[in-house]
């Protein structure tokens, strides 16, 4: 059984608790152990970089150091946490000066980060480490006929330039296929949801959410699947506000990919956190059927 150091991030504590629950259930189902990093702290989000990048690196490095101490690669389910952690780890590995300074701060918590671990997004664990074949095998109730818009968002692929293909990744689509659902051709799959703007520039953020929802509906999607708590919140919680602002009547469920996986694996919906959403997912659940 492979083991990872799991860094849930602040959102998954409450706002996106269902992501956390479904992540735990699905990883467990495929025989992967997620050991939550003890006493982890916030990754600094994007806002920390506005004030002091060195401090932001320090925050992230504390989590990295604890994961390293445990001896496992770090896994983040939130795309923003993932991006921050991935790049901090990369910069610390590349820049000795920086890593000396950050480690000087970490001393205060009796920690040290030497850069010996990798940072992965939760989806990478499923796609690359567990493998789509394995997921297919564990799928007992394939979601045949369910049209899923795989919404990558930004930070799961960007600005990671050495990624297989920043402008045309296919792994999310493949994952959706592996649980028997149909990935729809979703033109906006890599566009920004305005996540970090929802508070500071509401109008801009709601416009982006509207465009995304419109495109998903135009491509006949039954559900938008996300891999990030900020995207989920923006697209779902603010759907109502979009409808009011733009006189639309969107009502499309936004689910975590782990929730869809869980359904397809026949896991109980309560354990996947289904029920805390604003937009009903009842229709989605009806697709899960054992193959005839």
């Amino acid at each position: 059984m492979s083991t990872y150091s799991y860094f849930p991030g602040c959102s998954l504590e409450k706002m996106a608790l269902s992501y956390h629950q479904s992540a735990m259930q699905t990883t467990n189902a495929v025989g992967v152990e997620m050991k939550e990093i003890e006493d982890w702290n916030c990754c600094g989000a994007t806002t920390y970089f506005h004030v002091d990048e060195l401090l932001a690196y320090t925050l992230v490095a504390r989590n990295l150091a604890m994961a390293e101490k445990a001896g496992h690669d770090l896994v983040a389910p939130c795309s923003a946490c993932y991006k921050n952690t991935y790049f901090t780890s990369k910069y610390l590995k590349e820049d000795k000066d920086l890593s000396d300074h950050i480690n000087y701060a970490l001393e205060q918590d009796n920690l040290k980060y030497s850069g010996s671990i990798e940072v992965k997004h939760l989806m990478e664990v499923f796609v690359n480490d567990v493998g789509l074949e394995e997921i297919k095998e564990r799928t007992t109730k394939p979601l045949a006929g369910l049209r899923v818009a795989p919404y990558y968002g930004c930070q799961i692929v960007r600005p990671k330039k050495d990624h297989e293909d920043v402008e045309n990744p296919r792994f999310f689509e493949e994952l959706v296929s592996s649980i028997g659902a149909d990935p729809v051709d979703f033109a906006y799959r890599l566009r920004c949801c305005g996540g970090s703007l929802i508070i500071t520039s509401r109008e801009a953020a709601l416009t982006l959410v509207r465009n995304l929802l419109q495109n998903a509906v135009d491509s006949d999607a039954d559900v938008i699947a996300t891999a990030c708590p900020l995207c989920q919140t923006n697209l779902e919680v603010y759907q109502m506000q979009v409808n009011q602002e733009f006189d639309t009547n969107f009502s499309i469920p936004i689910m975590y990919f782990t929730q869809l996986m869980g359904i397809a694996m026949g896991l109980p919906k309560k354990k996947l956190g289904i029920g805390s959403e604003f937009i009903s997912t009842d229709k989605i659940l009806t697709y899960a059927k054992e193959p005839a």
Partner: protein
Amino acid sequence: MATRPTFSEEVANLMHSSHGNPLNTCIQCGTCSGTCPVAEFMDHTPRCLIGLINANQKEDVLDSNTYWFCASCFHCTVRCPSEIDISGLMYSLKRYSIWKHHYSDDAIGPVFSETFVKSILRSGRSYEPVLAPSYIFSYGVREFLNEAHTATNLMLKGRIPVIPPKLKRIENFKKMADRIIPMGGAK
């Protein structure tokens, strides 16, 4: 002897350790602005902002709302044909503006950043309810009601924490932050 740096050099100094090419390699092609999801809300497009920086138009740059609209989606950065880290530039300008207090009193961006940082330094993790008051009063009545309604719904769905989270080793955590910015937080 030292020659006084131009504004463009000041920005370069601010980005001295960034990971892309320097701003003066910009060919003004507009890929960033064509790509930017929020370009229509900005008073200057990202390309134009780089042009203004390279032309030392300090006031225009600092007065611009462009960098506060940047959503950190990194699409411009990965597409830039000159490999300029445009998102990194936006971060730099946000820092510059916060450090120099060069923003208007009703600007939400910097106020939010400050509130957020403060809250993390206090407890180690973010806690949504404390973030709200800082910006919510700047909204119009309708937005305010919408926001309040949304918050109530979140609360009912159990998606907002009631008690702020706190690290166990919060004292160490504060001391750690103090080594990066020694402001006496640890006493």
